[in-house]
């Protein structure tokens, strides 16, 4: 059973965490994710959860506490944004390489400077090579749903990797939307209890986690991590299938929106996907063959799915809400082009950096962008990458 409600993305994720009732949450407040630990504190004070809430003194400590708790055998979670995530970077690698299935509610926010509290993907893109599974949410419903699936993915024996569930700061985290909330019972049945095979507090077996590894071992341990991340593809598909059976809401690695016969398309992640869909609907209404591919999962990277989705696309806009400062585009641009190479070649691509520091990406912006893609399709010269929505 489920009920219709209205919630912000933060409240939706906090509701998921209440239903999950993890053993340990260690978190430090930072805008725009602050509400999540705030809600959790009130759940705890009101006796709705029996989670151990650790009010740490920094995000570095938050992730360290999660690592300790997870190694001990607990289901551990945290929430953060922006500079808070950047302060965790060192530990994110430790969590992933120690194969600890920690789950993070990430609320995407720009990194300084100039100092800014609004949405872009610079924070989690900085962690893209840390070994965490990354799932991006378009709206509050997806943030809630992705959070309910996160532990099943993270704790699967073939995976055992941490997962961050991302949503866009303020746009998703603070805007109140209609949402379907599942009942506690079925959710808890779906997630199940966590019984790790190896854990530090097991009195029957001595265990050391995170040892020093000399060069004769280090690379084999990294190869194991590669295997786990690659195995996550099938696990994500399986968990999403089970979730669809429970809720009727079906999620893939990517979502293809009106890609049938599309000649012009954009690849986009996060809240802008919803805006892009509205633009695609308008354009289709006036006969433009426009489509959209939304990445739900960025790690592992859905390279084959992206190439397969291209069909008859002739001009493609790859949308980065982050500039990697390679001076040749953003991280999604580089990886999406890599996915097409050798699989779906001959498509003209433009990599757009957009929406930095909370800059609006409106339906009209997508329409202008699709108009440029049409000119590129028809032979117009274009830069390989450019900023969209910036004052010249």
């Amino acid at each position: 059973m489920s009920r219709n409600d209205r919630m912000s993305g933060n409240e939706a994720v906090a509701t998921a965490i209440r239903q999950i009732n993890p053993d340990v949450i260690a978190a430090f407040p930072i805008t725009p994710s602050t509400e999540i630990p705030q809600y959790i504190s009130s759940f705890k004070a009101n006796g709705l959860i029996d989670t151990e809430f650790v009010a740490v003194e920094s995000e570095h400590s938050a992730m360290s506490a999660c690592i300790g708790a997870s190694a001990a055998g607990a289901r551990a979670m945290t929430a953060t944004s922006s500079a808070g995530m950047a302060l965790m970077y060192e530990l994110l690698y430790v969590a992933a390489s120690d194969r600890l299935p920690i789950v993070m509610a990430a609320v995407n926010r720009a990194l300084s400077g100039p100092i800014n509290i609004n949405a872009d993907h610079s924070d989690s893109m900085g962690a893209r090579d840390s070994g965490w599974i990354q799932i991006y949410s378009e709206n509050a419903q997806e943030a809630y749903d992705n959070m309910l699936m996160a532990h099943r993915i993270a704790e699967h024996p073939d995976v055992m990797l941490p997962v961050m569930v991302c949503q866009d700061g303020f746009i998703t985290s603070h805007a109140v939307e209609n949402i379907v909330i599942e009942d506690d019972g079925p959710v808890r049945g779906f997630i199940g209890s966590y019984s790790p095979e190896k854990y530090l507090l097991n009195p029957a077996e001595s265990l050391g986690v995170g040892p020093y590894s000399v060069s004769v071992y280090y690379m084999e341990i990294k190869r194991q991590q590669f295997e786990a991340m690659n195995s996550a593809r099938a696990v994500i598909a399986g968990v999403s299938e089970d979730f669809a059976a429970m809720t009727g809401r079906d999620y893939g690695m990517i979502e293809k929106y009106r890609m049938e016969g599309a000649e012009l398309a954009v690849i986009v992640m996060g809240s802008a996907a919803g805006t892009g869909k509205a633009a695609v609907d308008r354009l289709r209404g006036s006969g433009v063959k426009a489509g959209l591919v939304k990445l739900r999962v960025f790690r592992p990277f859905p390279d084959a799915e992206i190439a397969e989705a291209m069909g008859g696309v002739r001009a493609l806009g790859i949308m980065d809400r982050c500039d990697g400062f390679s001076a040749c585009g953003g991280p999604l641009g580089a990886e999406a082009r890599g996915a097409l190479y050798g699989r779906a070649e001959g498509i003209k691509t433009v990599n757009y950096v957009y929406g930095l520091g909370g800059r609006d990406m409106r339906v009209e912006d997508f329409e202008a962008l699709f108009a440029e893609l049409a000119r590129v399709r028809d032979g117009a010269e274009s830069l390989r990458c450019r900023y969209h929505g910036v004052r010249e």
Partner: protein
Amino acid sequence: MSATRRNLMEGMTPDAGWRELSPAAQVFGEGNSLFFNTGEWRTESPAWDAERCRQCLLCFPVCPDSSIPVAGGKRGGFDMEHCKGCGVCARVCPFGAISMTEHGREAAE
């Protein structure tokens, strides 16, 4: 070597493939520092003068590597496979029964 310690070492060899090594290099069993010969790091070595030693036992608790064995209430000779030559024992000995020698110094003198 106890059974646990033997199991601990099994499979963890430089020939083992990535599938054979424990996940994330997790280490099972305890006391594995015994297999790590920190004595190789030594640049100075302690010498114990059993004649001067009064068996006060101030030295063994300060040894960071448990390299001063104690049996029947008396200390014995150093475990040179694990002694890193830090010299803390020589510093705490009230009777001058422990002296430190820098490696290579013996030949020079």
